[in-house]
Protein backbone atom coordinates (compact mmCIF):
# COMPACT_ATOMS: atom_id res chain seq x y z
CA UNK A 1 0.00 0.00 0.00
CA UNK A 2 1.07 3.58 -0.83
CA UNK A 3 4.14 2.40 -2.79
CA UNK A 4 2.56 4.00 -5.82
CA UNK A 5 2.37 7.44 -4.16
CA UNK A 6 5.39 9.69 -4.64
CA UNK A 7 6.52 11.76 -1.63
CA UNK A 8 5.28 15.00 -3.22
CA UNK A 9 1.83 13.40 -3.68
CA UNK A 10 1.73 12.34 -0.03
CA UNK A 11 2.77 15.84 1.04
CA UNK A 12 -0.02 17.34 -1.08
CA UNK A 13 -2.61 15.05 0.51
CA UNK A 14 -1.35 16.01 3.96
CA UNK A 15 -1.57 19.70 2.99
CA UNK A 16 -5.19 19.16 1.93
CA UNK A 17 -6.06 17.73 5.34
CA UNK A 18 -4.18 20.56 7.04
CA UNK A 19 -6.15 23.11 4.99
CA UNK A 20 -9.42 21.40 5.95
CA UNK A 21 -8.45 21.47 9.61
CA UNK A 22 -7.78 25.20 9.34
CA UNK A 23 -11.15 25.67 7.61
CA UNK A 24 -12.94 23.73 10.35
CA UNK A 25 -11.21 25.72 13.09
CA UNK A 26 -12.06 28.97 11.29
CA UNK A 27 -15.77 28.11 11.08
CA UNK A 28 -15.72 27.20 14.78
CA UNK A 29 -14.04 30.50 15.62
CA UNK A 30 -16.52 32.43 13.46
CA UNK A 31 -19.38 30.78 15.32
CA UNK A 32 -17.77 31.90 18.60
CA UNK A 33 -17.23 35.48 17.47
CA UNK A 34 -20.64 36.01 15.83
CA UNK A 35 -22.96 33.67 17.76
CA UNK A 36 -26.07 35.34 16.33
CA UNK A 37 -25.15 34.73 12.68
CA UNK A 38 -26.01 31.54 10.84
CA UNK A 39 -23.03 29.56 9.57
CA UNK A 40 -24.92 26.32 9.03
CA UNK A 41 -24.43 26.33 5.24
CA UNK A 42 -20.71 27.03 5.56
CA UNK A 43 -20.19 24.33 8.18
CA UNK A 44 -22.10 21.81 6.02
CA UNK A 45 -19.86 22.75 3.13
CA UNK A 46 -16.65 22.18 5.11
CA UNK A 47 -17.94 18.91 6.55
CA UNK A 48 -18.78 17.64 3.05
CA UNK A 49 -15.29 18.62 1.88
CA UNK A 50 -13.92 16.41 4.66
CA UNK A 51 -15.96 13.49 3.35
CA UNK A 52 -14.95 14.10 -0.28
CA UNK A 53 -11.24 14.54 0.44
CA UNK A 54 -11.27 11.67 2.96
CA UNK A 55 -12.90 9.17 0.61
CA UNK A 56 -10.81 10.26 -2.35
CA UNK A 57 -7.48 10.06 -0.54
CA UNK A 58 -8.39 6.70 0.98
CA UNK A 59 -9.11 5.34 -2.50
CA UNK A 60 -5.96 6.92 -3.90
CA UNK A 61 -3.81 5.53 -1.07
CA UNK A 62 -5.27 2.05 -1.55
CA UNK A 63 -4.44 1.75 -5.26
CA UNK A 64 -4.87 3.57 -8.57
CA UNK A 65 -7.62 1.07 -9.47
CA UNK A 66 -9.52 1.94 -6.28
CA UNK A 67 -9.32 5.62 -7.21
CA UNK A 68 -10.65 4.78 -10.69
CA UNK A 69 -13.58 2.92 -9.09
CA UNK A 70 -14.18 6.04 -6.99
CA UNK A 71 -14.46 8.13 -10.16
CA UNK A 72 -16.76 5.49 -11.67
CA UNK A 73 -19.06 5.95 -8.69
CA UNK A 74 -18.94 9.73 -9.13
CA UNK A 75 -19.92 9.26 -12.78
CA UNK A 76 -22.79 6.99 -11.78
CA UNK A 77 -24.15 9.53 -9.29
CA UNK A 78 -23.68 12.36 -11.80
CA UNK A 79 -25.48 10.47 -14.56
CA UNK A 80 -28.32 9.60 -12.19
CA UNK A 81 -28.68 13.27 -11.28
CA UNK A 82 -28.59 14.33 -14.90
CA UNK A 83 -31.19 11.82 -16.07
CA UNK A 84 -33.44 12.54 -13.08
CA UNK A 85 -33.38 16.27 -13.78
CA UNK A 86 -33.79 16.24 -17.56
CA UNK A 87 -36.97 14.99 -19.21
CA UNK A 88 -36.72 11.42 -20.49
CA UNK A 89 -39.21 9.41 -22.53
CA UNK A 90 -40.81 6.48 -20.78
CA UNK A 91 -40.23 4.33 -23.86
CA UNK A 92 -36.46 4.76 -23.46
CA UNK A 93 -36.09 2.86 -20.17
CA UNK A 94 -34.00 0.12 -21.79
CA UNK A 95 -31.85 2.70 -23.53
CA UNK A 96 -31.17 4.45 -20.23
CA UNK A 97 -30.21 1.11 -18.77
CA UNK A 98 -27.52 0.75 -21.47
CA UNK A 99 -26.33 4.26 -20.68
CA UNK A 100 -25.74 3.20 -17.08
CA UNK A 101 -24.00 -0.03 -18.16
CA UNK A 102 -21.62 2.01 -20.33
CA UNK A 103 -20.10 3.53 -17.14
CA UNK A 104 -18.68 0.14 -16.20
CA UNK A 105 -17.06 -0.35 -19.62
CA UNK A 106 -15.71 3.18 -19.85
CA UNK A 107 -13.95 2.86 -16.48
CA UNK A 108 -12.80 -0.67 -17.26
CA UNK A 109 -11.04 0.72 -20.35
CA UNK A 110 -9.54 3.44 -18.16
CA UNK A 111 -8.36 1.00 -15.46
CA UNK A 112 -6.71 -1.26 -18.04
CA UNK A 113 -5.21 1.76 -19.87
CA UNK A 114 -6.85 0.58 -23.11
CA UNK A 115 -6.62 3.99 -24.76
CA UNK A 116 -8.13 3.05 -28.14
CA UNK A 117 -11.37 1.74 -26.65
CA UNK A 118 -11.45 4.40 -23.94
CA UNK A 119 -11.46 7.18 -26.49
CA UNK A 120 -14.00 5.71 -28.95
CA UNK A 121 -16.39 3.84 -26.67
CA UNK A 122 -18.82 6.67 -25.86
CA UNK A 123 -18.28 9.13 -28.75
CA UNK A 124 -18.43 6.36 -31.39
CA UNK A 125 -19.86 3.07 -30.13
CA UNK A 126 -22.51 4.46 -27.77
CA UNK A 127 -23.24 7.23 -30.29
CA UNK A 128 -24.25 4.47 -32.70
CA UNK A 129 -25.78 1.98 -30.29
CA UNK A 130 -28.12 4.12 -28.17
CA UNK A 131 -30.07 5.67 -31.08
CA UNK A 132 -30.14 2.22 -32.69
CA UNK A 133 -31.79 0.79 -29.60
CA UNK A 134 -34.16 3.76 -29.72
CA UNK A 135 -35.37 3.19 -33.28
CA UNK A 136 -35.83 -0.49 -32.40
CA UNK A 137 -38.31 0.60 -29.73
CA UNK A 138 -39.94 2.63 -32.44
CA UNK A 139 -41.27 5.79 -30.78
CA UNK A 140 -40.43 8.73 -33.04
CA UNK A 141 -42.02 11.52 -31.00
CA UNK A 142 -39.23 13.50 -29.36
CA UNK A 143 -36.54 11.26 -30.90
CA UNK A 144 -34.00 14.03 -31.49
CA UNK A 145 -34.48 15.57 -28.04
CA UNK A 146 -34.20 12.19 -26.33
CA UNK A 147 -31.19 10.97 -28.34
CA UNK A 148 -29.44 14.34 -28.12
CA UNK A 149 -29.88 14.86 -24.40
CA UNK A 150 -28.96 11.28 -23.56
CA UNK A 151 -25.73 11.47 -25.52
CA UNK A 152 -24.91 14.80 -23.92
CA UNK A 153 -25.60 13.26 -20.51
CA UNK A 154 -23.07 10.50 -21.23
CA UNK A 155 -20.48 12.97 -22.50
CA UNK A 156 -20.84 15.18 -19.43
CA UNK A 157 -21.24 12.63 -16.67
CA UNK A 158 -19.17 9.70 -17.95
CA UNK A 159 -16.83 10.48 -20.85
CA UNK A 160 -15.45 13.78 -19.54
CA UNK A 161 -15.00 12.67 -15.96
CA UNK A 162 -13.37 9.39 -16.97
CA UNK A 163 -10.44 11.42 -18.34
CA UNK A 164 -9.55 12.38 -14.79
CA UNK A 165 -9.48 8.68 -13.92
CA UNK A 166 -7.38 7.81 -16.96
CA UNK A 167 -4.68 10.25 -15.79
CA UNK A 168 -3.95 7.75 -13.01
CA UNK A 169 -2.66 5.13 -15.43
CA UNK A 170 -1.10 7.48 -17.96
CA UNK A 171 2.54 6.75 -18.85
CA UNK A 172 4.91 8.88 -20.94
CA UNK A 173 5.36 7.55 -24.48
CA UNK A 174 8.55 6.23 -26.08
CA UNK A 175 9.36 9.52 -27.77
CA UNK A 176 7.39 12.30 -26.08
CA UNK A 177 7.32 15.78 -27.64
CA UNK A 178 8.75 17.23 -24.42
CA UNK A 179 11.11 15.61 -21.96
CA UNK A 180 9.17 14.63 -18.79
CA UNK A 181 10.58 16.28 -15.71
CA UNK A 182 9.92 13.84 -12.85
CA UNK A 183 9.97 15.29 -9.35
CA UNK A 184 10.92 11.92 -7.74
CA UNK A 185 11.81 8.28 -8.52
CA UNK A 186 8.38 6.93 -7.62
CA UNK A 187 6.81 9.55 -9.90
CA UNK A 188 8.81 8.10 -12.79
CA UNK A 189 7.08 4.76 -12.29
CA UNK A 190 3.68 6.19 -11.26
CA UNK A 191 3.25 9.67 -12.75
CA UNK A 192 -0.57 9.40 -12.62
CA UNK A 193 -1.49 10.37 -9.05
CA UNK A 194 0.52 13.60 -9.30
CA UNK A 195 -1.19 14.59 -12.57
CA UNK A 196 -4.63 13.84 -11.15
CA UNK A 197 -4.01 15.78 -7.94
CA UNK A 198 -2.68 18.69 -9.96
CA UNK A 199 -5.79 18.73 -12.17
CA UNK A 200 -8.23 18.57 -9.26
CA UNK A 201 -6.34 20.99 -7.06
CA UNK A 202 -5.93 23.64 -9.77
CA UNK A 203 -9.54 23.21 -10.95
CA UNK A 204 -10.98 23.63 -7.46
CA UNK A 205 -8.64 26.52 -6.61
CA UNK A 206 -9.63 28.19 -9.89
CA UNK A 207 -13.29 27.97 -8.80
CA UNK A 208 -12.40 29.70 -5.55
CA UNK A 209 -10.22 32.36 -7.24
CA UNK A 210 -12.93 33.13 -9.81
CA UNK A 211 -15.45 33.53 -7.00
CA UNK A 212 -13.24 35.74 -4.85
CA UNK A 213 -12.05 38.02 -7.68
CA UNK A 214 -15.58 38.25 -9.08
CA UNK A 215 -16.89 39.32 -5.68
CA UNK A 216 -14.24 41.95 -5.11
CA UNK A 217 -13.92 43.80 -8.41
CA UNK A 218 -15.27 44.42 -11.87
CA UNK A 219 -18.49 45.77 -13.27
CA UNK A 220 -18.84 44.41 -16.81
CA UNK A 221 -20.57 41.03 -16.67
CA UNK A 222 -19.31 38.13 -18.80
CA UNK A 223 -22.75 36.49 -19.10
CA UNK A 224 -25.34 38.47 -17.13
CA UNK A 225 -28.19 36.13 -18.07
CA UNK A 226 -26.35 32.94 -17.13
CA UNK A 227 -24.44 33.91 -14.00
CA UNK A 228 -24.81 37.51 -12.80
CA UNK A 229 -21.86 37.19 -10.38
CA UNK A 230 -19.18 36.72 -13.06
CA UNK A 231 -17.28 39.82 -14.23
CA UNK A 232 -14.49 40.28 -16.80
CA UNK A 233 -12.13 41.66 -14.17
CA UNK A 234 -12.91 38.67 -11.96
CA UNK A 235 -12.29 36.26 -14.83
CA UNK A 236 -8.92 37.80 -15.67
CA UNK A 237 -7.87 38.00 -12.01
CA UNK A 238 -9.00 34.41 -11.43
CA UNK A 239 -7.17 32.99 -14.46
CA UNK A 240 -3.97 34.90 -13.61
CA UNK A 241 -4.01 33.58 -10.03
CA UNK A 242 -4.66 30.07 -11.33
CA UNK A 243 -1.70 30.33 -13.73
CA UNK A 244 0.48 31.50 -10.87
CA UNK A 245 -0.55 28.55 -8.69
CA UNK A 246 -0.16 26.09 -11.60
CA UNK A 247 3.41 27.29 -12.26
CA UNK A 248 4.13 27.04 -8.56
CA UNK A 249 2.94 23.47 -7.99
CA UNK A 250 3.07 21.94 -11.51
CA UNK A 251 6.84 21.25 -11.68
CA UNK A 252 6.91 20.09 -8.03
CA UNK A 253 3.96 17.69 -8.27
CA UNK A 254 3.93 16.46 -11.89
CA UNK A 255 6.20 15.74 -14.85
CA UNK A 256 5.18 19.11 -16.37
CA UNK A 257 7.99 21.68 -16.63
CA UNK A 258 7.42 25.40 -16.03
CA UNK A 259 6.26 26.39 -19.57
CA UNK A 260 3.91 23.37 -19.72
CA UNK A 261 2.56 24.15 -16.23
CA UNK A 262 1.87 27.70 -17.37
CA UNK A 263 -0.10 26.50 -20.41
CA UNK A 264 -1.96 23.99 -18.20
CA UNK A 265 -2.88 26.89 -15.90
CA UNK A 266 -4.35 28.84 -18.84
CA UNK A 267 -6.27 25.77 -20.05
CA UNK A 268 -7.68 24.88 -16.62
CA UNK A 269 -8.45 28.51 -15.72
CA UNK A 270 -10.43 29.23 -18.87
CA UNK A 271 -12.14 25.85 -19.31
CA UNK A 272 -13.02 25.62 -15.62
CA UNK A 273 -14.79 28.96 -15.96
CA UNK A 274 -16.54 27.76 -19.14
CA UNK A 275 -17.63 24.47 -17.54
CA UNK A 276 -19.05 26.27 -14.52
CA UNK A 277 -21.09 28.64 -16.71
CA UNK A 278 -22.20 25.84 -19.00
CA UNK A 279 -23.71 23.92 -16.08
CA UNK A 280 -25.28 27.16 -14.78
CA UNK A 281 -26.93 27.67 -18.17
CA UNK A 282 -28.23 24.12 -18.09
CA UNK A 283 -29.66 24.59 -14.59
CA UNK A 284 -31.36 27.81 -15.65
CA UNK A 285 -32.89 26.01 -18.61
CA UNK A 286 -34.22 23.25 -16.35
CA UNK A 287 -35.41 25.88 -13.81
CA UNK A 288 -33.53 24.25 -10.94
CA UNK A 289 -31.09 25.70 -8.44
CA UNK A 290 -29.03 22.57 -7.80
CA UNK A 291 -28.76 19.14 -9.41
CA UNK A 292 -29.55 17.44 -6.11
CA UNK A 293 -28.79 17.34 -2.41
CA UNK A 294 -26.32 14.47 -2.25
CA UNK A 295 -23.55 16.74 -0.93
CA UNK A 296 -24.88 18.93 1.92
CA UNK A 297 -23.76 22.54 1.44
CA UNK A 298 -22.77 21.96 -2.19
CA UNK A 299 -25.89 20.61 -3.88
CA UNK A 300 -25.58 17.61 -6.15
CA UNK A 301 -22.50 15.79 -7.40
CA UNK A 302 -22.82 17.59 -10.75
CA UNK A 303 -22.75 20.95 -8.98
CA UNK A 304 -19.40 20.02 -7.43
CA UNK A 305 -17.74 18.64 -10.59
CA UNK A 306 -19.13 21.25 -13.01
CA UNK A 307 -15.72 22.79 -13.81
CA UNK A 308 -13.99 19.41 -13.90
CA UNK A 309 -16.30 18.35 -16.75
CA UNK A 310 -14.42 20.70 -19.06
CA UNK A 311 -10.98 20.82 -17.42
CA UNK A 312 -10.49 17.01 -17.20
CA UNK A 313 -10.61 16.14 -20.92
CA UNK A 314 -8.75 19.30 -21.96
CA UNK A 315 -5.93 18.86 -19.45
CA UNK A 316 -5.74 15.15 -20.27
CA UNK A 317 -5.33 15.76 -24.00
CA UNK A 318 -2.82 18.51 -23.37
CA UNK A 319 -0.70 16.17 -21.22
CA UNK A 320 -1.22 13.34 -23.73
CA UNK A 321 -0.07 15.59 -26.60
CA UNK A 322 3.04 16.75 -24.75
CA UNK A 323 4.14 13.50 -23.11
CA UNK A 324 2.06 10.64 -24.58
Amino acid sequence: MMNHLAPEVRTTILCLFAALTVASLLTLAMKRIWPDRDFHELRCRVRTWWAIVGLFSLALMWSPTAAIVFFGLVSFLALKEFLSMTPTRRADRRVLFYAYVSIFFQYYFAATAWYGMFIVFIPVLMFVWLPTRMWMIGQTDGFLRAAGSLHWALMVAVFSLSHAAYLLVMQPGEAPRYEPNFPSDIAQQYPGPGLLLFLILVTELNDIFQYMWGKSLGKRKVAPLVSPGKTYAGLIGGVLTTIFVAVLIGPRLTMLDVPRSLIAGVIIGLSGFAGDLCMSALKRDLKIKDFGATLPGHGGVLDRVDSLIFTAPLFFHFAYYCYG
Partner: protein
Amino acid sequence: MDETNRPLRFAFFALVVRPLMMIVLGTNVRRGELLPKSGPAIIVANHNSHLDVFALMNVLGLGRLRLVRPVAAADYFLTRPLRRWFSTRIVGIIPIDRTKSRREDGKHPLEPISEVLRAGGIVLLFPEGTRGEPEQMVAFQSGVAHLAKRHPDVPITPVFTHGLGKALPKGEAILVPFFCDMFVGEPLDSTLGKNELMAQLSESMGRLKSELPVQTW
Protein backbone atom coordinates in the same frame (compact mmCIF):
# COMPACT_ATOMS: atom_id res chain seq x y z
CA MET B 1 -52.67 -8.56 14.65
CA ASP B 2 -49.00 -7.67 14.25
CA GLU B 3 -47.57 -10.74 12.61
CA THR B 4 -44.38 -9.13 11.26
CA ASN B 5 -41.01 -10.75 11.84
CA ARG B 6 -39.41 -7.79 13.62
CA PRO B 7 -35.68 -8.66 13.50
CA LEU B 8 -35.85 -9.82 9.88
CA ARG B 9 -37.93 -6.79 8.92
CA PHE B 10 -35.42 -4.43 10.53
CA ALA B 11 -32.50 -6.22 8.86
CA PHE B 12 -34.19 -6.08 5.47
CA PHE B 13 -34.84 -2.35 5.72
CA ALA B 14 -31.40 -1.57 7.17
CA LEU B 15 -29.31 -3.76 4.87
CA VAL B 16 -31.29 -3.94 1.61
CA VAL B 17 -33.71 -1.02 1.33
CA ARG B 18 -31.43 1.66 2.78
CA PRO B 19 -28.38 0.97 0.58
CA LEU B 20 -30.67 0.59 -2.45
CA MET B 21 -32.32 3.93 -1.77
CA MET B 22 -29.02 5.64 -0.94
CA ILE B 23 -26.89 4.46 -3.87
CA VAL B 24 -28.97 3.00 -6.68
CA LEU B 25 -32.02 5.25 -6.39
CA GLY B 26 -32.11 8.24 -4.08
CA THR B 27 -34.84 10.37 -2.58
CA ASN B 28 -35.26 14.09 -2.73
CA VAL B 29 -37.55 14.91 0.21
CA ARG B 30 -39.15 18.32 0.69
CA ARG B 31 -40.52 19.25 4.12
CA GLY B 32 -39.74 15.86 5.69
CA GLU B 33 -40.36 17.48 9.09
CA LEU B 34 -44.11 17.47 8.32
CA LEU B 35 -44.16 13.67 8.38
CA PRO B 36 -45.76 12.30 11.58
CA LYS B 37 -43.22 11.75 14.36
CA SER B 38 -45.30 9.00 15.97
CA GLY B 39 -48.63 7.26 15.64
CA PRO B 40 -51.50 7.12 15.34
CA ALA B 41 -51.23 8.77 11.94
CA ILE B 42 -52.25 8.22 8.34
CA ILE B 43 -50.00 9.03 5.36
CA VAL B 44 -51.62 9.11 1.93
CA ALA B 45 -49.46 8.94 -1.19
CA ASN B 46 -49.92 8.45 -4.90
CA HIS B 47 -48.76 5.13 -6.29
CA ASN B 48 -46.42 4.58 -9.25
CA SER B 49 -44.34 1.54 -8.44
CA HIS B 50 -43.80 -1.27 -5.95
CA LEU B 51 -40.83 0.79 -4.81
CA ASP B 52 -43.05 3.63 -3.49
CA VAL B 53 -43.75 1.85 -0.25
CA PHE B 54 -40.07 1.04 0.37
CA ALA B 55 -38.98 4.58 -0.46
CA LEU B 56 -41.59 6.04 1.89
CA MET B 57 -40.76 3.61 4.69
CA ASN B 58 -37.06 4.38 4.21
CA VAL B 59 -37.71 8.11 4.51
CA LEU B 60 -39.71 7.52 7.69
CA GLY B 61 -36.56 5.86 9.03
CA LEU B 62 -35.61 2.78 11.00
CA GLY B 63 -36.61 4.41 14.28
CA ARG B 64 -40.26 4.56 13.20
CA LEU B 65 -40.20 1.30 11.22
CA ARG B 66 -41.84 -0.65 14.05
CA LEU B 67 -44.92 1.60 13.80
CA VAL B 68 -45.25 1.76 10.02
CA ARG B 69 -47.82 -0.47 8.30
CA PRO B 70 -48.74 -0.04 4.61
CA VAL B 71 -52.24 -0.95 3.48
CA ALA B 72 -52.23 -3.30 0.50
CA ALA B 73 -54.63 -5.36 -1.57
CA ALA B 74 -55.24 -8.81 -0.10
CA ASP B 75 -56.43 -10.12 -3.45
CA TYR B 76 -52.97 -9.39 -4.93
CA PHE B 77 -50.43 -9.75 -2.14
CA LEU B 78 -51.85 -12.78 -0.34
CA THR B 79 -52.25 -15.00 -3.39
CA ARG B 80 -48.89 -16.80 -3.64
CA PRO B 81 -47.14 -18.29 -0.60
CA LEU B 82 -43.79 -16.48 -0.99
CA ARG B 83 -45.43 -13.16 -1.83
CA ARG B 84 -47.76 -13.62 1.10
CA TRP B 85 -44.89 -14.36 3.50
CA PHE B 86 -42.85 -11.39 2.29
CA SER B 87 -45.78 -8.97 2.33
CA THR B 88 -47.08 -9.82 5.78
CA ARG B 89 -43.85 -10.68 7.64
CA ILE B 90 -41.28 -8.30 6.12
CA VAL B 91 -43.18 -5.38 4.60
CA GLY B 92 -45.84 -5.71 7.27
CA ILE B 93 -48.84 -4.92 5.12
CA ILE B 94 -52.39 -4.59 6.40
CA PRO B 95 -54.23 -6.71 3.84
CA ILE B 96 -57.58 -5.30 2.64
CA ASP B 97 -59.75 -7.22 0.24
CA ARG B 98 -60.75 -4.93 -2.61
CA THR B 99 -63.31 -7.37 -4.02
CA LYS B 100 -65.64 -7.71 -1.02
CA SER B 101 -67.58 -4.97 0.71
CA ARG B 102 -68.33 -7.13 3.78
CA ARG B 103 -65.99 -9.50 5.54
CA GLU B 104 -66.95 -13.07 6.41
CA ASP B 105 -66.83 -12.30 10.13
CA GLY B 106 -69.22 -9.39 9.62
CA LYS B 107 -66.71 -6.73 10.67
CA HIS B 108 -66.24 -3.47 8.79
CA PRO B 109 -63.71 -3.96 5.92
CA LEU B 110 -61.54 -1.14 7.31
CA GLU B 111 -61.47 -2.71 10.79
CA PRO B 112 -57.86 -4.06 10.45
CA ILE B 113 -56.63 -0.52 9.75
CA SER B 114 -58.56 0.83 12.73
CA GLU B 115 -56.92 -1.80 14.95
CA VAL B 116 -53.46 -0.62 13.90
CA LEU B 117 -54.39 3.03 14.43
CA ARG B 118 -55.76 2.27 17.88
CA ALA B 119 -52.46 0.59 18.71
CA GLY B 120 -50.61 3.79 17.72
CA GLY B 121 -49.40 2.77 14.28
CA ILE B 122 -48.53 4.89 11.23
CA VAL B 123 -50.67 3.68 8.33
CA LEU B 124 -49.55 4.20 4.73
CA LEU B 125 -52.41 4.45 2.29
CA PHE B 126 -52.23 4.57 -1.51
CA PRO B 127 -55.75 5.70 -2.38
CA GLU B 128 -55.27 5.37 -6.13
CA GLY B 129 -55.84 1.68 -5.42
CA THR B 130 -53.39 0.53 -8.10
CA ARG B 131 -49.99 1.50 -9.51
CA GLY B 132 -51.67 2.02 -12.90
CA GLU B 133 -49.90 3.89 -15.66
CA PRO B 134 -46.60 5.10 -14.18
CA GLU B 135 -46.48 8.77 -13.16
CA GLN B 136 -50.15 9.33 -14.09
CA MET B 137 -52.27 10.24 -11.09
CA VAL B 138 -55.85 8.98 -11.14
CA ALA B 139 -58.81 9.89 -8.96
CA PHE B 140 -58.43 8.83 -5.35
CA GLN B 141 -60.76 6.28 -3.83
CA SER B 142 -62.73 7.41 -0.84
CA GLY B 143 -61.48 4.83 1.69
CA VAL B 144 -59.39 7.52 3.32
CA ALA B 145 -62.55 9.57 3.96
CA HIS B 146 -64.20 6.58 5.65
CA LEU B 147 -61.11 6.19 7.80
CA ALA B 148 -61.18 9.88 8.71
CA LYS B 149 -64.81 9.49 9.75
CA ARG B 150 -63.88 6.57 12.01
CA HIS B 151 -60.80 8.36 13.41
CA PRO B 152 -61.41 12.13 13.31
CA ASP B 153 -58.52 12.78 15.71
CA VAL B 154 -55.86 11.04 13.58
CA PRO B 155 -53.81 13.40 11.35
CA ILE B 156 -53.73 12.65 7.60
CA THR B 157 -50.51 13.74 5.86
CA PRO B 158 -50.42 13.86 2.05
CA VAL B 159 -47.20 12.88 0.25
CA PHE B 160 -46.66 13.30 -3.48
CA THR B 161 -44.15 10.87 -4.97
CA HIS B 162 -42.63 11.07 -8.42
CA GLY B 163 -39.91 9.21 -10.28
CA LEU B 164 -40.13 5.63 -9.09
CA GLY B 165 -42.60 4.88 -11.88
CA LYS B 166 -39.69 5.57 -14.20
CA ALA B 167 -37.30 3.40 -12.16
CA LEU B 168 -39.54 0.33 -11.95
CA PRO B 169 -42.98 0.67 -13.56
CA LYS B 170 -45.67 -1.99 -13.51
CA GLY B 171 -44.75 -5.06 -15.53
CA GLU B 172 -41.03 -4.27 -15.87
CA ALA B 173 -38.21 -6.34 -14.44
CA ILE B 174 -35.18 -4.10 -15.09
CA LEU B 175 -34.53 -1.43 -12.49
CA VAL B 176 -33.23 1.83 -13.97
CA PRO B 177 -31.67 4.24 -11.44
CA PHE B 178 -33.50 7.53 -10.92
CA PHE B 179 -33.89 9.96 -8.08
CA CYS B 180 -37.42 10.11 -6.78
CA ASP B 181 -39.14 13.17 -5.43
CA MET B 182 -41.16 13.03 -2.25
CA PHE B 183 -43.03 16.23 -1.42
CA VAL B 184 -44.79 16.30 1.95
CA GLY B 185 -47.84 18.54 2.44
CA GLU B 186 -49.56 20.02 5.48
CA PRO B 187 -51.83 17.55 7.32
CA LEU B 188 -55.45 17.56 6.10
CA ASP B 189 -58.43 18.54 8.23
CA SER B 190 -59.73 15.08 9.21
CA THR B 191 -62.97 16.45 10.65
CA LEU B 192 -64.32 17.33 7.20
CA GLY B 193 -67.08 15.35 5.49
CA LYS B 194 -66.32 12.81 2.78
CA ASN B 195 -66.60 15.03 -0.31
CA GLU B 196 -64.85 18.00 1.29
CA LEU B 197 -62.00 15.82 2.52
CA MET B 198 -61.52 14.18 -0.88
CA ALA B 199 -61.55 17.63 -2.52
CA GLN B 200 -58.97 18.87 -0.03
CA LEU B 201 -56.80 15.82 -0.69
CA SER B 202 -56.83 16.20 -4.48
CA GLU B 203 -56.23 19.93 -4.18
CA SER B 204 -53.26 19.33 -1.86
CA MET B 205 -51.81 16.65 -4.14
CA GLY B 206 -52.21 18.89 -7.17
CA ARG B 207 -50.35 21.67 -5.39
CA LEU B 208 -47.51 19.31 -4.40
CA LYS B 209 -47.33 17.99 -7.96
CA SER B 210 -46.96 21.50 -9.36
CA GLU B 211 -43.66 21.79 -7.43
CA LEU B 212 -42.03 19.40 -9.91
CA PRO B 213 -39.38 21.23 -11.91
CA VAL B 214 -39.60 19.31 -15.18
CA GLN B 215 -42.19 17.26 -16.93
CA THR B 216 -41.67 14.30 -19.20
CA TRP B 217 -41.85 14.68 -22.96
